[in-house]
């Protein structure tokens, strides 16, 4: 039994470094984090941040240059076979067995893991049902949609009842309905007690699913906490985003100074530019409403043209911008 005061570590990464041959920099650079049993842990970062490489090391497919990675206390380098029996993997790219039907994909996967025949047949039926694949069970996955492939890969990964499930970019390229379906299944798995590590470059996904989020960029861990704490740590209030056409570069600099100095504005950054139009984001200490008029007045006073105003809650993307100075793409 799990004592409520004690969290059991399902995944642990200590000072992990990976440098690929011929690469100039480390793909993963002294990364450390721990995932508690039963939680959904999200690695959030842009493409090329080192998320997939980290998953690769944890799933025994990438050899680490330095550091340690453990699954349920077992070192991935020292005992890769044991580790492989503990984890389920849903890769970023479709790697389904195209020569086998949907049901055979599930059954053979379980057989590779030594699951007894009666158990694997029962489990396959249940998972086909849960992932809405029963009516396609005897089809080959050749002509499946991205959503069907993804559902199938998750179902397959669960066939040997893994301790930890790794999902690498689980909803990239899926349409909104398929994405929500996958989100619901992931939440169900958490309810069932499966530990989940997922990577995503989508802040909405991280915020919607993850109990805790590690923000990574250039192989480094920049922040680690629950999505709510990360956002709260950034700013107490709302966010106001304005699109302006400033009076030249000097006008823009003066505008940033002026807006940053307004009472109620905690911080002010330019987050985007398209042609002459710049997007400025203001992190506020309180509500945005009272400030809108003063911000508009300041823009006009400095010879700028106000194009758009948007009031938003702060999000993980703001945290990323704060940490790296650029948008999450």
């Amino acid at each position, binding site marked *: 039994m799990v004592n409520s005061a004690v969290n059991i570590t399902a995944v642990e990464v200590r000072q992990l470094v990976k440098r690929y041959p011929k690469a100039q920099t480390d793909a993963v650079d002294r990364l450390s984090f721990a995932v*508690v049993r039963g939680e959904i842990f999200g690695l959030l970062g842009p493409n090329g941040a080192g998320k997939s490489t980290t998953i690769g090391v944890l799933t025994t497919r990438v050899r680490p240059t330095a550091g340690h990675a453990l699954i349920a206390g*077992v070192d991935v380098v020292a005992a890769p*076979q044991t580790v492989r029996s*503990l984890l389920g993997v849903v890769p970023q790219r479709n790697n389904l067995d*195209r*020569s086998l039907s949907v049901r055979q994909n599930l059954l*053979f996967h379980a*057989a*590779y893991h030594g699951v007894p025949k009666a158990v694997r047949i029962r489990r396959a039926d249940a998972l086909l049902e849960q992932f809405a694949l029963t009516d396609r069970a005897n089809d080959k996955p050749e002509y499946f949609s991205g959503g069907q492939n993804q559902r199938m890969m998750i179902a397959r990964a669960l066939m040997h009842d893994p301790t930890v499930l790794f999902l690498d970019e689980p909803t990239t390229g899926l349409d909104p309905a398929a994405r929500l379906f996958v989100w619901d299944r992931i939440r169900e798995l958490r309810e069932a007690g499966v530990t989940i590590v997922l990577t995503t470059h989508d802040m909405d996904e991280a915020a919607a699913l993850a109990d805790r989020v590690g923000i990574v960029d250039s192989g480094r861990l920049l922040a680690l906490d629950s999505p709510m704490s990360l956002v709260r740590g950034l700013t107490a209030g709302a966010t106001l985003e304005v699109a302006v056409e400033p009076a030249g570069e000097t006008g823009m600099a003066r505008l940033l100074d002026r807006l940053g100095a307004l009472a109620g504005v905690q911080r002010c950054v330019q987050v985007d530019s398209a042609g002459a139009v710049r997007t400025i984001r203001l992190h506020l200490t309180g509500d945005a409403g009272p400030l809108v008029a003063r911000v508009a007045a300041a823009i006009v006073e400095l010879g700028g043209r106000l194009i758009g105003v948007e009031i938003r809650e702060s999000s993980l993307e703001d945290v990323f911008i704060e940490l790296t100075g650029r948008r999450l793409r």
Partner: protein
Amino acid sequence: MTATTAEVRTEPAAEVRGPSWTLMARSFGSVLRRDVVVTGKDLVAFLAQVLLQPVFFLFVFGKLLTGLGYTSHNYASLLFPGLVALTVAVTAIQATAFPLVAEFGWTKEIEDRLLAPLPLWAVAAEKLLFASLRAIVAAAVMFPIGIGVLGAVPYRAAGMGLLVTVALLGSFVGACIGMTVGTFVPPTKINIAFALIFTPLLFTGATQYPWPSLAGLRWFQVVTAANPITYVSEGMRAALVPGIPHIPGWICILALLVSLVVFGTLGMVGFRRRAID
């Protein structure tokens, strides 16, 4: 429940000893069964793929040209063992090279097996075992086909031991050559690589001529001596038609064992390189 406040304890590593041999044997068996099931569904296509070429060779060179008087009658009996040898080697090479290029290159299908609780070498060994299984089946089918095309094929009960040994060794060597090619050649260059590797292998393997008869063409004799298929062909001749000049059986076995070590090592190194980054 967050990890930041509460005590974090690492679970005792209960299974560090690793999966049991029974589990690994079951896992290995399942991986092999997968290949058997997939091939079984396409048995006719498989046999057509591996047998069409030797059957035409047999028909044109063993039957047609002999019937027209361009080749002597005993040419068929020296060609037949060579074609069985070629079928064994080429079937095995193709059975590892093609799937490995595809599975590591674009379908990524092999990943699910690489994540099974098996050592990497066992996943590679299964590929080799299955490839030689295919090669042995293809070679066995050559005999009834040979009888059908030629009317009779050379057979010698006393040579059976040598025949089976050479066929098994030849199939393993072929599978290892295929694994070497399939893992070292980048997927984008595979078409040109197959053309550059297969055509020379096909014609320098002493399939269509006995090796000792090349004495007058020394450079070609040296070239063919470097092709492992030569020793499969010559070993088959030693077993089936000992009256035709051939390399002694024990030399063939020795040369095939050396090839097995060389290409087995290369194949395993290549497989490891592709399986782990």
